[in-house]
């Protein structure tokens, strides 16, 4: 099958074009490094099926990070296999000079290239005019003007990519390439002067120390407020009414039909409390499992990813990264590492994957360890808020302060004891863009779907596991064994061992199982912290292993167990 390879600088819209060509939805945003692995899809053109590959963005064909390495080695390997391939080089038309460096490098190396001049819609306000015809002449390859977000130029790309043909290899040095780029740019691009726009003023203000910090604090505050507001709104006005008014009557009928006390009733519905189903405590496959996932967690997943998606698409996040750069160096990372960490607040798995955009293994280890220990995912946070919400804001604050302090302390210690140093930040700051609504919502839908597909099997499994244990009444034996550890060190009731172990399957359902234990506020705080810090869920564990290897996973696990006991024990003494 013929292949089309999409390549270009970071943040030029490769993934949006990929989605347009293949119809496959992928996560896109407005900063460098959103795509960290290659993705395959298919498209049909002229009755022929073609494979389309989206690669992580790269500034040059000499890789400087793991994500860039993926691109460079993929390109080399594919062409060595002598399959029929076309390279679609996507460039940001508003930033021609820098983008053309990669283009010329690709052409000089003899790859069959088609150039897509993306973001053409943004040229007019910036006073830039580009003569695409002239550019086609000078480069000797097809040049297509496009705007991927609206779909402009995609059809033309589908028609013309076959005009690309492999050229002669002309080896040029880095500086020779720059000279050639300069010559082309002066011939095809003309600039007209225009006044500073409001957008540019905001861009400037957000990268100055004082105004930048004020904007940063405002954004963080607004983010928390918005996530809370949207999440609570969805629960109160959508999910709770659905469960209480539509689902409960059906279940009550089913419960009567199955006869309470039978095995099937126990598995599907669980225990009844005063003859009624209690979604939080019944622990049945049709009661607690869907309730915790859909009515408690899903609303927060939706609101978190909606707000995060908005922030990603505006281009604010790299500005936030430079604001924190100085502080992040104290824990062995540079400012950009805040982005994987923010993603970790949604789900640790994409957070750890996103550390690929960092330069060294040392940084990847520190950031991945910090994510898996001290960054609670949105699902877990939703449950912690449910657990502690009734006891007031203060107890919630204790949990987050405890997690944040361990984040700082563990990072600081790792930075001190690990060999090496933290590399310096080099980051391109994108222009602000107003997030396109269609992309915002298709990205949200993509992430929510992933969440449901990934989470639900584990939730069912976890609830089934506890349900069967309850049925066989083996709880006591096991909980008695762990009693000394739970009671003396952590001050928790012995039954809490089950939810905490369950946390390995899924954190949210584990937290749900803490609800019926009737614990004091102090115990709830400790349990929430221990649950957040101890073993990350199995999905995070697997991704950590895949990304960093067994040695690093064992090291992280040791740190994790030690830190959990220290922090849990300390809270037991202090509170």
């Amino acid at each position, binding site marked *: 099958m013929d292949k089309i390879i999409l390549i270009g600088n970071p943040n030029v819209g490769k993934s949006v074009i990929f989605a347009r060509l293949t119809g496959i939805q992928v996560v896109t945003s407005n900063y460098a490094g959103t795509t960290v692995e290659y993705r395959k899809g298919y498209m049909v053109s002229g009755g022929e099926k073609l494979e389309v590959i989206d690669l992580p963005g790269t500034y040059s064909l000499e890789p400087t990070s793991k994500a860039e390495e993926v691109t460079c080695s993929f390109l080399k390997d594919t062409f060595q296999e002598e399959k029929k391939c076309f390279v679609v080089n996507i460039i940001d038309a508003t930033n021609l000079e820098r983008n053309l460096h990669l283009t010329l490098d690709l052409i000089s190396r003899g790859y069959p290239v088609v150039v897509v001049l993306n973001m053409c819609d943004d040229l007019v306000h910036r006073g830039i005019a580009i003569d695409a015809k002239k550019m086609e002449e000078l480069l000797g390859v097809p040049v297509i003007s496009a705007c991927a977000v609206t779909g402009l130029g995609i059809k033309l790309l589908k028609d013309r990519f076959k005009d690309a043909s492999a050229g002669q290899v002309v080896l040029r040095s880095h500086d020779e390439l720059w000279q050639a780029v300069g010559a082309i740019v002066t011939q095809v691009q003309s600039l007209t002067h225009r006044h500073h726009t409001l957008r540019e003023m905001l*861009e400037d203000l957000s990268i100055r*120390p004082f105004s930048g910090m004020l904007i940063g604090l405002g954004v963080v505050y607004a983010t928390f407020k918005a996530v809370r507001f949207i999440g609570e709104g969805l629960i109160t006005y959508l999910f709770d009414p659905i469960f209480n008014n539509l689902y409960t009557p059906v279940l009550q009928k089913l419960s009567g039909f199955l006869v309470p006390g039978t095995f099937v009733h126990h598995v599907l519905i669980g225990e009844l409390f005063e003859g009624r189903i209690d979604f939080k405590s019944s622990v049945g496959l049709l009661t607690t499992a869907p309730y915790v996932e859909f009515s408690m967690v899903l609303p927060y997943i939706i609101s978190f990813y909606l707000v995060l998606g908005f922030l990603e698409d505006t281009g604010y996040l790299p500005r936030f990264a430079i604001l924190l750069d100085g502080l992040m160096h104290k824990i062995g990372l540079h400012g950009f590492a805040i982005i994987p960490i923010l993603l970790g607040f949604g789900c640790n798995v994409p957070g750890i994957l996103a550390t690929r955009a960092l330069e060294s293994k040392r940084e990847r280890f520190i950031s991945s360890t910090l994510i898996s220990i001290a960054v609670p995912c949105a699902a877990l946070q939703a449950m912690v808020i449910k657990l502690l919400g009734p006891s007031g804001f203060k107890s919630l604050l204790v949990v987050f302060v405890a997690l944040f302090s361990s984040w700082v302390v563990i990072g600081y210690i790792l930075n001190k004891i690990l060999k090496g140093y933290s590399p310096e*930040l080099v980051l391109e700051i994108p222009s602000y863009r107003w997030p396109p609504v269609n992309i915002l919502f298709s990205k949200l839908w993509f992430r929510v779907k992933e969440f449901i597909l990934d989470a639900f099997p584990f939730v069912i499994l976890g609830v089934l596991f506890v349900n069967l244990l309850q049925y066989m009444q083996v709880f006591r034996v096991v909980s008695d064994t762990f009693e000394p550890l739970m009671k003396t060190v952590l001050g928790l009731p012995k039954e809490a061992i089950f939810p905490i172990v369950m946390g390995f399957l899924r954190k949210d359902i584990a937290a749900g199982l803490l609800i019926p234990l009737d614990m004091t506020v102090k115990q709830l705080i400790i349990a929430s912290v221990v649950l957040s810090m101890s073993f990350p869920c199995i999905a995070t564990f697997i991704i950590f292993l895949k990304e960093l290897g067994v040695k690093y996973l064992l090291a992280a696990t040791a740190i994790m167990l030690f830190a959990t006991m220290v922090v849990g024990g300390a809270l037991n003494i202090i509170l």
Partner: protein
Amino acid sequence: MINKDEKNLIPLTKLKRGTKARVVEMPEGKQLYFKLSSLGLRPGVSLVKLSAFALRGPVTVKCGSTTIALGHGMAEKVYVEPFGVNKI
């Protein structure tokens, strides 16, 4: 090696905010050179310093149509020759 005192060269960290300058010397290291130059920061180009952050925070510059943030340690190793003030 260019004599830094003679030609009025200063590190990027010492350049005043809003000043235009020409890049003369870049930090060593092939990979780093590739990375910076592919972002458009290379000897001979002119840039405007946009801001600098306290506590050894990063420096931001505008270079062509690209805005770049550089860590403090790296900005110390980029030597530039100032040539005028550009009001922003």
